[in-house]
């Protein structure tokens, strides 16, 4: 028989004992629903944890420093170590090279400067720290008051909550106001200017500068969980803006004593990757370029292992209901054989082969599996949503921010459907074989 005919006959047969078959199908649906609900929670929790980790902005980054700066701290380098000037400087060309490495999303310097902040005639000392555009994604900015920087070079500032309170009794009122930061700019010596005859012209001058900034936001938490140099800033400005300011950096002072002091170098660079799992490879590549690197170990690897085990257990518990449902399928189909003995005999007398009969029962099992699977996915989805909603209602009562603890990715839908059909087909194996073996002479004997 052709597939469409088989399917039509099978669905017709299923409709004949609609109640019994619906109950069996419902059993499968409940089984699939429990599987989907369990796994969607497992996956949801995993995604939530992953989101937290990636938003911390710590696990997808490599901190790069020049080996020049730390020379002497490293004992194993011994006395044969290359001279500082032979070591590669962390300069613009190095930065460009790192940006070209595979999977690198951005490379930016960590800039922190000591400034004098003037607001409404009062002066405060404050560290200004620069943040890249990607910082918008990190946790600290999730619940900020106001907005993130409007552009990469916007002359705008985000204040720490603490600092905002120092500036004003009503921190919210600061939004949109202007403040002025005064800082030290590093200026190259123009045409040997400042260097006397016969002296080494290398060096730079330091000039006092002022920059107006409009306050656009206030954050409560320290960015990057307080684990980075820039975390402890009190005023945050866009990295590109900070770079343009040519602020005098610690490395400049060190460099001033060296030969290449006229070249601008970075104290440290942050290399951000698309995914935490890419950190190790990139770190190796940067080490080969001759720099010192540091990264927080790939924490996601252990997390993934934990969730794989969690999902496995959730899956096993979820599958139990499906296993029970599969016994229901066997029962229903064996009953159907008893009821449809004569019909099977007729089919055979009309020329249906054993294989045709077997396939018919198989398709019936498959249809129950597919329908039950689809209903189960819908039910499981609804169940997961309900659990998510309930959790968030609870979180809201505890005055905690909402969380997405539930996720049904498309592959879970496809896998649950496929699993349901496969389980049903396996359950149909025995009944189908039994139906195919039925002796038509016995089945058609007139009673």
């Amino acid at each position, binding site marked *: 028989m052709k597939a469409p005919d088989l399917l039509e006959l099978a669905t017709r047969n299923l409709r004949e004992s609609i109640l019994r078959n619906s109950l069996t199908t419902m059993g499968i649906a409940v089984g699939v629903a429990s599987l989907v609900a369990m796994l969607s929670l497992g996956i949801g929790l995993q995604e939530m944890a992953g989101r937290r980790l990636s938003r911390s902005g710590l696990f997808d980054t490599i901190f790069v420093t020049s080996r020049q700066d730390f020379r002497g701290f490293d004992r194993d380098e011994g006395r044969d170590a290359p001279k500082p000037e032979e070591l590669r400087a962390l300069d613009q060309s190095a930065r460009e090279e790192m940006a070209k490495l595979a999977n690198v999303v951005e490379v930016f310097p960590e800039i922190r400067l000591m400034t004098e902040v003037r607001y409404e005639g009062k002066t405060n000392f404050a560290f200004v720290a620069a943040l890249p555009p990607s910082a918008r994604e990190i946790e600290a900015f999730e619940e900020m008051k106001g907005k993130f920087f409007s552009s990469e070079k916007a002359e705008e500032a985000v204040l720490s909550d603490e600092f905002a309170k120092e500036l004003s009794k009503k921190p919210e009122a600061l939004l949109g106001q202007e403040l002025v930061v005064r800082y030290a700019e590093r200026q190259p010596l123009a045409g040997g200017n400042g260097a006397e005859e016969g002296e080494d012209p290398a060096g730079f001058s330091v000039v006092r500068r002022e920059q107006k900034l409009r306050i656009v936001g206030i954050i409560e938490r320290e960015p990057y969980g307080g684990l980075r140099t820039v975390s402890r800033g009190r005023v945050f400005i866009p990295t590109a803006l900070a770079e343009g300011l040519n602020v005098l950096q610690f490395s400049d002072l060190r460099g001033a004593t060296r030969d290449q002091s006229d070249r601008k170098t970075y104290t440290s660079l942050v290399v951000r990757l698309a995914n935490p799992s890419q950190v190790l490879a990139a770190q190796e590549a940067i080490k080969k370029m001759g720099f010192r690197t540091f990264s927080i170990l790939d924490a996601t690897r252990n997390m993934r292992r934990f969730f794989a085990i969690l999902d496995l257990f959730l899956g096993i518990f979820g599958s139990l209901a499906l296993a029970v449902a599969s016994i229901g399928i066997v029962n229903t189909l064996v009953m159907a054989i008893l009821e449809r003995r004569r019909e099977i005999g007729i089919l055979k*007398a009309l020329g*249906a082969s054993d294989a045709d009969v077997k396939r018919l029962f198989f398709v019936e099992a498959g249809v129950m599996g597919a329908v039950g699977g689809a209903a189960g996915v819908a039910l499981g989805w609804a169940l997961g949503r309900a659990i998510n909603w309930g959790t968030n209602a609870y979180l809201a009562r505890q005055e905690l921010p909402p969380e997405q603890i539930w996720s049904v990715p498309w592959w879970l839908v496809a896998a649950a459907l496929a699993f349901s059909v496969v389980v049903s087909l396996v359950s149909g194996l025995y009944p189908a074989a039994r139906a195919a073996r039925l002796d038509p002479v016995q089945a058609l004997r007139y009673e």
Partner: protein
Amino acid sequence: MNAAIKNGSAIHAVNVSRHYRMGQTEVRALDGVSLEVARGEFLALLGSSGSGKSTLLNLIAGLDRPTSGSVEVEGRDLARMNSEELARYRRHTTGMVFQAFNLIPSMTLAENVDLPLRIAEVERGEREGLVREALKRVGLEARMGHRPSELSGGEQQRAAIARALVNRPSLLLADEPTGNLDSQTGEEILGLVKELNQSLGMTVVLVTHERPLAERFARRFVFLADGRLAEGTQTGGPGAGA
């Protein structure tokens, strides 16, 4: 050999036996029967119940296999066919009619008649015409959409005949087709079978225990008793004109 066999034998059974085992005892349902049926013949298998006539019919129908001996239909030995080949044989060569009609109650007449075509994987577009034609031939074209339960016994059996002939088989096998019908309806049914035998040239093997009825329609009789051929008339009755 009589005249009908000369144009080729449709059925050629040699020394066919079919034994069953029921508990400790062996039942010899059929015991060394040899039979020749010519193409286009209308043969009646007569005998009391348990004589083995239905067993013989089932062997000819390819629903059962002989314990020993051979059953050749149109030159092919059914005993040597595997189950797939037997199914194909049933699909294309035979049409069966039963005492209990054996229509599928949940299907309309058209769907019942369509069933052999589905099994034979006839193209969907072709099927509707064939179904209509078969039902027209048995006079049930107007009742295509009815279910078997909405019809009289005679109509159900006519529908079963339409189902048996829709695949244009060369062999029509009828197992007590009048057993559930009153005598007048029974005659109508056998009249229809006879008509198909003559107009379509189908070879008919009719199993019945109603000898008078068989005598009116069949051209040749074979008597079975206790699984063996019994002595008896081999010529046609008054109604058995060629």
